[in-house]
């Protein structure tokens, strides 16, 4: 099973299910995963102002379906805290469950959504070509939960091979997923702090030179390099050779200089290039700690 963490919600899904659709909104959105043949799971969320009576919501929904006659074979089901129904749709079985989830969202997200509490209504729809796999269904439902916030208000995101810690109060402004490229960009409302996490593949096709040279080419034009630490072997990071650049970004007419830190390395396990860059008034000394590629590379450590 593979762990995904998106918008503070964690879920474990089979290894071959990949996220093909996603929403960036904190208030309401959905993510959908597919195996190689069809969509298999859809997780949707809606921010709410406190716990809901899920039992009543589920029974009302089922009664409405029966009244409409749209899903006459829908059978009520309950798995742990999840209330829902199971039914057959042509040749496939469908499980539809929902529950209230107390989220550990950032304060900024809550304020933006006008919420007093930190919770959301989560709905999970699973599609089963052929027979419904009850054990897998229970395992997936049991894995859904709120991802605890990290030290210093850091929030974890784990998707597309990236396992990243983004600062609280930053919005995800960009999520690019292409063959051999996954990029998550977070920025605050004023644009003073930005954090970028990248995972790049197919290196023989485009990486001509060392990782350090590549990292220097990624520097914004206004960065004055202060520390360029090449080939710093981090033994505690599973033998990953991390290239680090730290510098100062020149200020503008109405803004002072800001700090810049970036790190890049090749993961020997999957052969991909990982890159993290942070710029803002205060930047942690080790930008590498915000991104992990495998078990050998501790997140935040």
């Amino acid at each position: 099973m593979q762990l995904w963490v998106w918008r503070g919600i964690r879920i474990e899904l089979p290894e071959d299910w990949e996220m093909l659709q996603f929403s960036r909104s904190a208030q309401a959105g959905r993510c959908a995963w597919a195996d190689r043949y069809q969509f298999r799971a859809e997780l949707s969320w809606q921010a709410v102002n406190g716990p809901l009576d899920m039992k009543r919501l589920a029974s009302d929904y089922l009664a409405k379906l029966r009244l409409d006659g749209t899903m006459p074979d829908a059978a009520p089901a309950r798995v742990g805290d999840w209330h829902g129904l199971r039914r057959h749709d042509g040749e496939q079985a469908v499980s539809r469950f929902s529950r209230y989830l107390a989220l550990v969202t950032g304060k900024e997200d809550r304020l933006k959504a006008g919420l007093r509490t930190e919770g959301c209504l989560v709905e999970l729809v699973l599609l089963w070509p052929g027979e419904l796999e009850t054990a897998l269904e229970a395992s997936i439902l049991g894995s859904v939960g709120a991802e605890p916030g990290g030290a210093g208000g850091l929030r974890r995101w784990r998707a597309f091979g990236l396992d990243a810690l983004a600062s609280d109060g930053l919005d995800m402004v960009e999520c690019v997923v292409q063959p051999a490229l996954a990029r998550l960009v977070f920025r605050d409302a004023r644009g003073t702090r930005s954090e970028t996490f990248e995972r790049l593949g197919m290196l023989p096709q485009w990486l001509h030179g060392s990782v350090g040279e590549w990292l220097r080419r990624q520097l914004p034009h206004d960065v004055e390099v202060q520390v360029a630490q090449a080939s710093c072997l981090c033994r505690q990071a599973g033998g990953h050779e991390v290239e680090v650049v730290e510098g100062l970004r020149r200020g503008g007419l109405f803004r002072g200089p800001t700090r810049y830190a970036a790190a890049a390395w090749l993961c020997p396990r999957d052969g991909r290039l990982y890159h993290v860059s942070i710029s803002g008034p205060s930047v942690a000394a080790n930008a590498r700690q915000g991104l992990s590629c495998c078990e050998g590379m501790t997140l935040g450590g």
Partner: protein
Amino acid sequence: MLSAQPVPNAAAETVREASGELAVAVRRKRPRWHVPPLSWVVPLKPTRTVRLDPLGAQVWALCDGERTVEAIVDAFAVEHGLSFHEARVAVTGYLSQLVQRGALAVAMKEG
């Protein structure tokens, strides 16, 4: 779609160019209007050439008329260390270009 078999156009000719690109030349059908005296003043190339970068050339080489799209995606994914969906996006992109330009046809299984 994944069970479809891309079949190269039998009339296509491939040439490896000096730049490393693979050129696939496909004979084009002469348009009905291309007759004398118009054909004397409007020259038309008898072939249409598709130039493939090294990745496109790999996909072309995998299209042997036997492999399915799924098998091609799997082979491409293994070759480049990509996930199935990453490789699927890249491979189907190349395949659709090749089909549009007449270099490939796609055979679908019945049923």
